[in-house]
């Protein structure tokens, strides 16, 4: 699992690679803590190399979404692989998270 965070003004680009499973979710949550507690209005997450997402991983996306929305910002997930997108679709996450 690898996370790269690039910050510019109130925009932040996060690149996730690898498997976001139960064990790596904790690490992801730790990495995202500054974003959760920050004030970035635009959060973009590049999922080109995201290979797997568990329900625990989804939870963190949900937490991020809630926090960003609470500060009148917007979170966008981009370049999801089809089977990952399917997970987001089935669980209804596509209804609350902006996925391109």
């Amino acid at each position, binding site marked *: 699992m690898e996370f790269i965070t690039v910050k510019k003004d109130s925009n932040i680009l996060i690149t996730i690679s690898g498997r976001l499973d139960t064990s790596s979710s904790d690490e992801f949550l730790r990495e995202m803590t500054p974003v959760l507690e920050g004030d970035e209005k635009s959060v973009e997450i590049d999922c080109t190399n995201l290979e797997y997402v568990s*329900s625990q991983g989804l939870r963190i996306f949900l937490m991020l979404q809630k926090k960003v929305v609470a500060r009148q910002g917007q979170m966008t997930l981009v370049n999801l692989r089809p089977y990952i997108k399917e997970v987001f679709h089935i*669980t209804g996450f596509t209804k609350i998270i902006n996925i391109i």
Partner: protein
Amino acid sequence: MKPIQKSFSTRLSLNILLATSLLFIVAIGIASISSHMLISKEAELSASHLLDATINEIELSMREIETEVKGTAWMVDEKKNDPQAMYALTAEAIKRNSKIEGCAIAFSANYYDGHYYFSPYSYRDSSTGEIKTKQLGNESWDYFYMDWYQIPALSGKDGWCEPYFDEGGGKFYMSTYSYPLKDKNGKLIAIITADVSIRWITELLETIKPYETSKVYLISRSGSYINTESDSSLFGETIYSKLHYIEDSDNDIHTLVSKMMSGEKGMDKFSRKNQMSFSVFGPLANGWILSILCDYKSVLANTSKMQSILIIVGIIGLLLIFALCYGIVKKNTSPLAALSSSALRIAKGDFDTTLPEIESDDEIQQLKNSFDYMQRSLKEYIASLKKSTATNERFENELSVASKIQMSMLQKVFPQHDKFDLYALLKPAKEVGGDYYDFFLKGNLLYFTIGDAAGKGIPAAIVMAITKSIFHFVAGMGLSPEDMVKKINNSISEGNDNGMFVTMFVGCLNLDTMELTYCNAGHNPIIINGNFLDEKPNIACGLIPDFDYKIQSIQLQKNSQLIIYTDGVNEAECQDGKQFGNDRLVEWTKQTGALNSQQDICMNLLYAIQTFTQENEQNDDITIMAIKIK
């Protein structure tokens, strides 16, 4: 700690000792060689001076005697007309010079008419010391043919004759000085002699030995040893007869003797019986030869003694250096030893050990600082490790509690019913406990549900507990699946800061009409008769409060086969990351006809998944529920 065979201090001190010893040995060697050379040179020089002085002293005494005799000769010439006065002259000569033992005035034949032999003679009586006078010379004592008379008479020159041993008188070597007195025409009047005991010379020679083992030889012109008192083996020998005992190969000695006897003055070294010696030699005015012989062993005896003292002092010094080095090194390295034992205590786990105080500001201090840093880091690391271990333990504890809660919430007894068969199984993954299944029979209504709470541990277990209680409550009241999902959604959404959510499928089968009403809250679509059921994609519970979940319905037939599952099934992965997937799942459900019971279906599907994933560790709970309409 492994015992150190030789401590650092010992080793360093030994090395220093070795180096110093080498230097010391070289220094002693050089000092001893140069001192040997110096002392040898000094000894040779002083022996040579001694020789000169002794020769001078002997010659002085001899000249006194010669002068005495010459004086007597003058008196004889004055009083030659009075033969009787000659007796007194001889006695006076002895009186005047204590070295003269006897004095004779031997007149030439018939000097006084009628007296063929006339030789007045005085001598010192050896026992009483009295001076006695008599006339020597008669037919039985025909002095004209004796050396002391004949040689000066013929040569016309004064001189000392060969020493001879005085058997009758003093039992010691004597030598006679003869002076020829001539008249104006050069005709011999008389030979005036002085018999001199050589004892005073031998006594003098005894006192000039530079070393106890030194030898002093006085040798006559013909090579006889004159001073034989101190070495009786020389008695009657000559230097030439002695030379017979010496091998011809000893060239040094032969050369020395020939140099000596030719009247040269000088110094020569030679080796005899493995002993180096030197000889200083020189002639006396009368042709005798004096030689002083010293062996170098005696010359250098004192240096050897001095050398021994030097070596002893050196050894003591070296030992002191060793002790001093050992002490200094030990003192300087003792902080290291202390540090080392502290490090050992740290290694054994005593992180509170106090490091020794280092007073010096050097490498040892730096080492101590490094140790100090290491100790603190270790302490912090171990503390954090303990903390995280404790956290892990708590976490694992929590997981196992959650897992127990999860398993206790599952129904293990399945209803025996004439309208349907139902079986379900849950295979928990190692760390994840979010799956849940349940069913409830209320009159002619069969409620069933399958859910997957996000996350793990206690939070997931709480969500499931909420779900279960609402499921039983709503089912008990006979309400629709839609109401059930809405209530669960609102319950979880309320104050849901940590993004908790649950995906679930709730179905309600009317056993009279076989109509299935269902609500899918973000869950995987169920499979009916080998096809995915067309489901409205609602959203998982917990995402949006008061979400308007849509209910759907489908008419089932006899033998309809339902497979309800969680994402642990279709997302099961094999080693290379490939998922079991929907296609494989649907294909598999199409071949369930041969299987008799719902339990077989569940077990076989699990087996198929495990066959697919092989050794790969299960990464999510696997839950399968199978229902068949009879």
